[in-house]
């Protein structure tokens, strides 16, 4: 997070991580489609001609929020990492300074191992950057729910109950579950930052209020709570700072 008190500006960095071809870029494209034009910037994608992400994709979301302490600029930059194994160093570079990570898993049963390998890669890279899974808020999205050969909802629910991270189900190509995952991630990122930097007294905004404003700026007036809660599992960690 970059906090500029003078400009009352907060910049948050969210990173979408996951194995190759799990739909990270698709998530970002959908996010771009599904948000209000005046709050989103241009989607920067660095793709090769065969549609594989070479470096990363980045979508800036910028909006103002009126708070007790005055107007505040909020800048959220959402990044994806390149999933292919060879881009290890790029993944690490993109990951640095992330305020929260959404892990985009492929729901297909055949991809189980790739999901796990990528997750371990995430853990290794965070460690290399001197951080740990514990201090980076994480949500998990099981994408491609529309495909055949995927884990059933019941299986996912059962798995989610055993883990501590909230699990969102999505079909990013159809825009389903994209906003839910994003808001779930934004909420966890903000609550963590609020707890660490006491943003509620510094900026005069409560986490729920922040989320409500973010939702309305992006075109989801009054839907923040509903979107954030559209997950399974994640109960064990509770809601930090709530």
């Amino acid at each position, binding site marked *: 997070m*970059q906090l500029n008190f003078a400009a009352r500006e907060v910049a948050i*960095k969210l990173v979408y991580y996951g194995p190759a071809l799990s739909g990270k870029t698709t998530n970002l494209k959908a996010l771009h489609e599904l948000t209000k034009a005046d709050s989103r910037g241009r989607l*920067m994608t*660095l793709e090769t001609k065969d549609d594989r992400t070479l*470096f990363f994709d980045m979508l800036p979301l*910028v909006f103002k929020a009126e708070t007790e302490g005055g107007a505040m600029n909020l800048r959220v930059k959402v990044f994806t990492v390149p999933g292919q194994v060879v881009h290890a160093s*790029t993944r690490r570079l993109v990951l640095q300074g992330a305020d929260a990570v959404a892990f985009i898993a492929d729901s297909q049963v055949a991809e189980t191992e790739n999901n796990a390998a990528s997750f371990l890669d995430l853990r290794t890279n965070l460690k290399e950057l001197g951080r740990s899974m514990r201090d980076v808020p994480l949500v998990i999205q099981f994408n491609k729910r529309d495909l055949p050969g995927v884990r059933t909802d019941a299986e996912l629910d059962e798995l989610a109950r055993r883990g501590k991270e909230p699990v969102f189900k999505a079909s990013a190509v159809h825009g389903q579950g994209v906003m839910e995952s994003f808001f779930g991630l934004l909420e966890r990122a903000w609550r963590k930052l609020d707890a660490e930097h006491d943003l509620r007294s510094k900026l005069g905004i409560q986490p729920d209020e922040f989320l409500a404003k973010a939702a309305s700026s992006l075109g989801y007036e009054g839907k923040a709570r509903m979107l954030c809660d559209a997950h399974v599992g994640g109960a064990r960690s509770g809601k930090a700072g709530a």
Partner: protein
Amino acid sequence: MSDIPPASQDVVGDQPIALEDVVDRDALDDLCKSIHALFGIGVRVYASQGALLANVANELELCRYINEVPGSRAACGATVSAAKSVAPGDDGEVTHPCFTGLAYHIVSLVHEGRRVGRIVLGPYAPAGLREPPPSLAETDKRLDVVQASELAAKVPRVKQEALQRIAGHLKETLELIIFSSHKAWVTSKLHLYSVRESYRELQDKTTRLEQTLTRLKEVDRLKSNFLATMSHELRTPLTSIIGYSEMLAEGIAGELAPEQQEYVRTIHAKGEQLLRLIMGLLDLSKLESGTMSLRQAPAQIGPVLNEVITTLAPVARKKDVELAIDSDGVPCELAADAERLRQVFINLVDNAVKFTPKGGKVTVRARVTEGPALSGGGDDDDDSAGAVLLAPLLKQVEIRVSDTGIGIPAAERAKVFEAFYQVDSSSTREYGGTGLGLSIVKRIVDAHGGQVSVEGNEPNGTVFVVTLPSAQTRRAALPSRVPPALA
């Protein structure tokens, strides 16, 4: 922990960009010129800190006249600097009036939600302008208002909405350029940092590998030492076994029955065999640990080979294998240990005879050739350069020991020089041997700066090729082709 350069944070962080850094000024100038050519309105682009990046405008006659009058010139300067700094409001767009009745239109350039600069269009005459306002006359008493009004009337009128369309279009175009340039900047920076990061990882790995190699070399040295010590220790009791069995066989301790005689001779023969094996091991370990001293002296290959043939001729005759030599005058002086070279060729020729069936033929052929640096391998251009200077120094002797035996499959050829390696390693193998001979051969040849390799012999059999550099070549110490890691 990775020591990623902090600067790389800027690339994937949220640092504001500087318009000067991402936009090519000449390209920007060209763009502004084309807008100016199209609409006849002056275009200026400023970065957020006020730096002028592009300025394309023809001075209007009105402006030229005003600038001739000191008071009016001052007012004009004030207007221009106000247009440069006036806040464009929440919409990012504002019209700034000039005291002449003309106006400037100012539009913010926005990148990722931040204002990074502004476009100033003008001065232009708003569509509704008829007369210059009183503010014009107020700037300087000397100003001729009638003349100024006439000049103001010449300035083309522009409708506000048309102007806004032009401004909007230019803004969109410029923002696209800023986005693309920023994207290119991010790509190249990130590429650079990725390469650096990969390089760092590789370096770490190389360091770890080097440490492992050092450790392995040390272990290898210990192993060779151990082998040397053990061989020595094994030899001592064996000498007694051989000596006493020999004395028994000779009847020194009394006449033996034929059966006893046979047993004792077997003990003696096996003892000798074991001794050879141990000596071989000792040689190998000495060669490996580099403690075998080569007494290098001027030597010719001819006499060495003749001696080898003489030694092995009886063996070949017994097996009914023809043994031929072709080494007439190989006029090349070697710096070599003749005793060790004899060991090499005894080994090779003995092997050749061993693996050649009855009626077969073993040939030893020696000739002088040019070194590998001239005869191929590697980059042709590089190798042929300076041949006239280098050729005399690159003489070498090539000795080919060929047989018509069972041959060695191509895939096995590189391995035969490894210690204890046998092509046929089954317990029922037809041919005996310790598997040490060739590895000793290779190490001796290596110690002489030479090379040994295996080729197939048509239609069947094997050719062992030994090349030994001339004494002159070795003295000249031409760069070795052996990679340092293997040296």
